[in-house]
């Protein structure tokens, strides 16, 4: 049990460290990240930042959960940690304490936004 806890703690620490390092690189606020923090809305990460985190974690943890779990189901730091915990320890899928698993279906394709040059915005400069 202790070994399992050690492994889960290592996953949590590795994910948090990786996010912190990238936030630092991007010049974003990195203090006091907790698992409820939303990757985009709270931390200000962009989709390519999240991709970079996943690529680093693939090396660090030797796992890529997102061949199975849709990345769109990951909203918070806790979701990201749980994705790796479940991939590295599939027994957790039956653990009611693990909440992510929220393996949401992929979002429907979004309608492409019109290019900026064709979108009309109200002219606020008068």
């Amino acid at each position: 049990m202790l070994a399992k806890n050690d492994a889960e703690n290592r996953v949590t620490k590795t994910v948090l460290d990786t996010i912190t390092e990238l936030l630092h690189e991007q010049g974003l606020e990195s203090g006091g990240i907790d698992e409820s923090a939303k990757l985009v809305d709270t931390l200000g990460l962009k989709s390519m930042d999240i991709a970079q985190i996943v690529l680093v974690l693939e090396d660090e943890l030797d796992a890529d959960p997102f061949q199975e779990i849709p990345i769109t189901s990951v909203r918070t730091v806790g979701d990201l940690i749980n994705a790796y915990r479940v991939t590295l320890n599939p027994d957790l899928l039956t653990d009611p304490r693990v909440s992510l698993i929220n393996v949401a279906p992929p979002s429907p394709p979004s309608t492409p936004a019109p290019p900026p040059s064709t979108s009309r915005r109200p002219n606020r400069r008068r």
Partner: protein
Amino acid sequence: MTTKQPDSQGTADAPVVLISGGSRGLGLSLVDKFLDMGWRVATFSRSKTPQIEQREQDHGSIGSGRFRWFAVDGTDEDQIRLTVKTIVKNWSRVDTLINNAGAGNDGLLALQRMQDVDQLINVNLRSAILLTQLCSKSMIKNGRGSIVNISSVNSVRGHSGVAVYSATKAALDGLTRSLARELGPRNIRVNSVAPGYFESAMVGELSDDAKKRIQRRTPLGRLAQTKEIAEAVCFLASDQGSFITGQVLVVDGGLTC
């Protein structure tokens, strides 16, 4: 001239290029061009040619030299994954990817077997997308890179008998433009080179009359030499093209102008 040359310490810092389909034709010219520029070059094809054996003798194997060839069927996803993983493991990164491997398949669409259509899409498009996905991971981590997709004039002009081939090449150009936007913020450039007719196995199958007709319609009055196409690819792949991304460079002697 900002193209990187081999450093005085050896090859450990030399840029790494992966060229699909490098055993002959344009792919082989690209292998030679990048080796001449001092890069570390990896390539793959289904079977080894005498030219590849010669490069292996001249430039050694991975770990000690600058050239590595892999026996890979371009439609085999597992083999492609393993190849990219081996290159990254041994050379630590991929700086440049050139999606060169391709096949042709002439004939009226109405008479083509769907299995042949699928094969062409797999070789010309799906394997290029997979290679791009795998190599872009290394590039994103390193914060730099370049990708060149070998397209065709058939992607910009219609020609009877090559509808599926044209579709795969036009799809590559679409991949080029969207990926340029997606990867640009990570300092990764993506471009296409669309060659016209040049001395290659595909053109070798044309009749003499067909070749003469092409030459008549080409403002420069001749077919390209393979090395002329390779020069354009190297320009976009290397730092010489450092502010160019999302473009399709047509290299056809003016055929489509």
